[in-house]
Structures are given as C-alpha cells and as structure tokens.
C-alpha cells in the first residue's frame, strides 16, 4: 500500500501540451477514478504514473518518493491494459508468473502465489490454456491476475472493461470493486464511462482537455459540479443549461444548470415549454421539451406520473436551491461552490 501524489504534472508531445498541470493527493488504499471524454489525456496521465511516458514537468510521488526517473518496474506498480496485453504464446500460468520470474522469486513461491491468485479470480481450471483459448471476460481476469500476483503497492487500470459486453462489464465492475476493497491496494482507474466512475470511485478526477476540472467524492461531484463541463459530463441524461440572462438572479453572460430530476412540469412556473418527445424507461420517464428561446430541456419524471402527449405545453419549475450558476467562463459562482 502506498500514497500517490501528482504535483502540477504536465505533459507535452513536441510543442503540443496535452496535460496542463494536474495535482492530486491520493491516500493509501484509495480508489481513484480518472474520467473524461476521449482524448482529454486520461491515458497519458496514467501512463506517466506508470512510467511508460516521461514527465514533461511536475513530480510523481509514490509513498512520498519522487519516481520521475524510475523505470516502471522500480515503481512498485502493476498495470491492466485495455486490450489486456497478455503474452499470446504463454499459458495463463506463465502470463501471471512472468513478472515474478524476472524478479527471481523462488519457484515454490511463484507456484503458490499464482495458484492463490487463480483461486481468487476463479481461473484455476484455465491455468494451462493460452490466452486465445479464453473468453473476453476470462482474459480480463488473467490481466487482473497478472497485476495482483505481483502484490504491487499501486494498481493502474486503463479502461479495463471497455472490450466487454454490457452485462459482463457490470459484473466485472462489481468484482473489481470487491477485490480492491479486499486487497486494499491504492488504485488509479481510467474510464470514459461516467457510470463506472460513479460506482467505483472513492474519489474521482474529472478531466477536461488536459485539466482536472474537479476532484471529489462521486456524489459531491454530482451534486456540486464546479464547471459547466463537469455538470454536463457527470449524470445521464446531462444537466440542462439555460441562458442566465432570462432570470433575474442570473449572472450576466453566464448559464444556469438544472438536473433533469429537479425540474417539475406544472401549470405555473418560471419558463414555458412544449413537449417534443418522451422516452419511458420503466422506472422513470424522460420528457424532452423545447423552451421559448429554442433550447432543449430534458426532465426526468417518476414513472407513476402520466406521460404527457407531444405538443402539450407546460411551465417548468424548480427550487432555487437546485439551481447551478456558472459565469461566462463556465465556472460555478453561486454560494454552494464554496
């Protein structure tokens, strides 16, 4: 177990800066999820921690020690890759044992550690097979096993579930969470899937174009997004944004955001809108409306409420306390932003 600290980390490829100074302090045993859209620099950030990418400026500390100049193997980390990167010609056993063999761990101990890990991941019957003889989910487990068997002090995951089908993804997500809790190993997990991020993370880092827009507990981030980007990225369907100038309390040139579940459809309210379409999802219904200015608003209403027919006009209403105010630069400016 170890702490990890990123201190004003920057990365440029040639002239092109892709990480613009990210700082995070990660506690022992914490599960940190780095989430953001494609191309925002999540993988690059993780690879700098792994030592697969050099650091342009800033410091990566593991257990307080700067590891900027260390090879990956000297950092005491293990990494799970998106396409698993299993050695195709080696059996499952050899795949898991390879790192230990290089570290000159005695044979008996290798056998013991690999078989313990295989038991933990229910891989015992596959130990003799080659990766190509396994299903996607089993390969994924082997990749996890290869990381676990080395007993590293930090796990790094780069979108480990994105090659699995939806159902398996949910199952593996739960398994990863349970495993990490049992092993108590500090983990950094990269994903572009905000549901994965919300469910796995102790704290999450929301990345936007090379900046860490917000770092915090999933529910805090959800309730109190600090930027327009975070409000729009975390939560599905995303937060509704409206031009603030039409509201008395709004900042000049800014936007206000309201979560779909915080808007009520009523006879009286702040804004008039027409239903354009509805999506009944079973547990709740999404109602899409167009407001007078032309912008679209999505409302999540309980399944028990009647589904309004298309073209109906309503007034939208919400509580003042649920309103998120953002200035022209997209930064949160109301009281709750602290």
């Amino acid at each position, binding site marked *: 177990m170890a702490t990890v600290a990123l201190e004003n980390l920057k990365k440029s490829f040639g002239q092109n800066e892709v990480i613009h100074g990210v700082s995070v302090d990660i506690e022992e045993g914490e599960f940190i999820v780095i989430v953001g859209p494609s191309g925002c620099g999540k993988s690059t950030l993780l690879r700098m921690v792994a030592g697969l990418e050099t650091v342009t400026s800033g410091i990566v500390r593991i257990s307080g020690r700067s590891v900027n100049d260390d090879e*990956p193997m000297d950092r005491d980390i293990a990494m799970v890759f998106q396409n698993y*990167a299993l050695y195709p*010609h080696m059996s499952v056993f050899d795949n898991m044992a390879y*790192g230990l063999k290089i570290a000159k761990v005695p044979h008996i101990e290798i056998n013991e550690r690999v078989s313990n890990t295989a038991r933990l991941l229910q891989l015992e019957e596959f130990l003799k097979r080659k990766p190509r003889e396994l299903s996607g989910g089993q390969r994924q487990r082997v990749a996890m096993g290869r990381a676990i068997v080395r007993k590293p002090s930090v796990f790094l995951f780069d979108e480990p579930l994105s090659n699995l089908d939806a159902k398996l993804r949910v199952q593996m997500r739960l398994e990863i969470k349970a495993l990490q809790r049992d092993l108590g190993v500090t983990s950094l997990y990269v994903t572009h899937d905000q549901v994965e991020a919300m469910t796995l993370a102790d704290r999450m880092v929301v990345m936007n174009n090379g900046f860490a827009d917000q770092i915090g507990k999933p529910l805090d981030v959800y309730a109190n997004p600090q930027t327009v980007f975070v409000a729009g990225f975390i939560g599905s369907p995303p937060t509704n944004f409206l031009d603030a100038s039409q509201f008395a309390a709004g900042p000049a040139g800014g936007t206000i955001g309201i979560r779909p579940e915080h808007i009520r459809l009523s006879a009286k309210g702040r804004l008039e809108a027409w239903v354009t379409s509805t999506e009944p999802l079973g547990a709740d219904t999404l109602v899409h409306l167009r407001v007078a200015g032309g912008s679209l608003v999505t409302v999540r209403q309980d399944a028990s409420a009647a589904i309004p027919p298309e073209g109906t006009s309503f007034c939208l209403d919400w509580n003042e306390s649920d309103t998120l105010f953002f200035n022209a630069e997209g930064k949160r400016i109301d009281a709750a932003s602290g």
Partner: protein
Amino acid sequence: MNNGSGMVERRGSGLWLTHLGLVVGILFIFFPIWLAFVASTVAHREIVQPPMPLLPCNEFFDNYSLALTSGINAPVARMLFNSGVMAIGIAVGKILISLLSAFAIVYFRFPGRKLFFWLIFLTLMLPVEVRIVPTFEVAANLKMLNSYSGLILPLVASATATFLFRQFFLTVPDELAEAARVDGAKPMRFFVDILLPMSRTNIAALFVILFIYGWNQYLWPLLITTDPDMNTIVMGLKQMFPSGDEIANWPVIMATSILAMVPPVIVVIGMQKLFIRGLIESEK
C-alpha cells in the same frame, strides 16, 4: 476459410476431376526427377543406348558410393558438407542479424534510425551479382578466400528478412512491450522471451527459404573458392559436366544431382508444418 468449406462440400465428379488434375500435375513435375533417379541406378553403357529404362536397375549402390567418395575434383560427400555449412550459416546468420536489426529499428529511437532503415532497404535493390566485384575485393583483402567465413559472411546481410521481421514486429501491439516493461523485462529479455517465440513461424518459413537460397548459390562460391576441398555441391555438379571430348559418367552425375537435392527436401519436409503456418498465418 470460405474456400475450405467450399472444397469440402464439392462432391462426386468435381472432386475426382480436381484430384486427376493434381495427379497429372505432380506426375508432370516429378517425371524428370524420376528419370534422373533411374539414370543414377543404371550402368553407364545402358544410359547411352536408347531406349532409356524407366525402372531402377541394380547399380544404385555402386554409383552412389562412387559419387560420394570420389567425384570429379572433390568427393561429393565433402561438397555436400561444404554446401550444408554454407546454407545453414547463411540462413542462421541472416535470421539472427535481421531479427536484431528489425528489433532495433522498430523498438528503439536512435539518431539515424530512418537513415539506417532506408540504407538496409536500398540493398534490396542490389542482388549479389551486382555487387560481386567489390564484395570479392573486400573478401580477398580480408583473406577470406577458400574459407567458410568467405562463403557465408558476404551473403548474410539481408534486407528482405529485415524488412519482413520489421513488418511483423510492427503488428505486435505496443502494449505487449509495455506490459513486459511493467513486468520488469529489460529490452533483450523482452526480445528473447516474447518477440522470438512470437516470430517462431516466420523464422521457420524464412529458414526454409534462406536455406535453399544458400544451397543454390553458384556464382559466389565459384569466385571465392579455388581449393577443390572448399567447393560446394552446386559448383561440383557443374564441373562434372563434360567439356570438349571427355566422356562423362552420366549415372554418377545423376546420382550427384539426386544427392544435391536431398538436403533441401529434408529441410522443407521437416519444417513443412511451421513453414506453411508462417506463410498463411496473420497472427495478432
């Protein structure tokens, strides 16, 4: 795959016709070899008076032992050995060098990397025959005439094989190298433990091709060896052909031809499985 299942489904006359075609083709190709074999088992006088026999006679043992032990300039056994050393030397040397140079070109960023690659690529355009005079000059200056190193080394540097391995290494996912790095493998360890076993079938295919290439070399051994003891079998075969009014011992020449064919055939058959996989496989 689609072709395969199509072939399995083909029934009756189509199947027989296909086989007939193949059998005729094989007979057509095999017939001269069969004639050579028959000719190597008859006595000299039978061969010069038509009709030529079509079934082996009983001089097999005499002709072959004569060929193996005496030959024209050097015994065939000696020349077979020389050819073997040369062919294996060239094949192994080429494979080793091109594996290593492809590894360097694909996995390391060093100054002049592109330049080196293009230099290697350029030599693709220059077969042995084109650069034979300067190469001979260099070999002579290095006192490599009449030696195995002289036979092997000038033919070892190989653009084709380097190019082939480079293409293969480029298809190996970067993550594999990164996983090995995280596992603590130094570059050479990665090369030996992971890259080599993954290129196994490519190596086998190349070995077969290069062995035959080395075995069939004629011009270069002719230049570099003057000592009959260093002659290769392909040279020897040529020298056995009668010049002027000598009388050739055709059965012995035919026996030598058959002997010259045996090692490449053994190599092809021995490596067939790997070889074919290497040619058709598009492994991840």
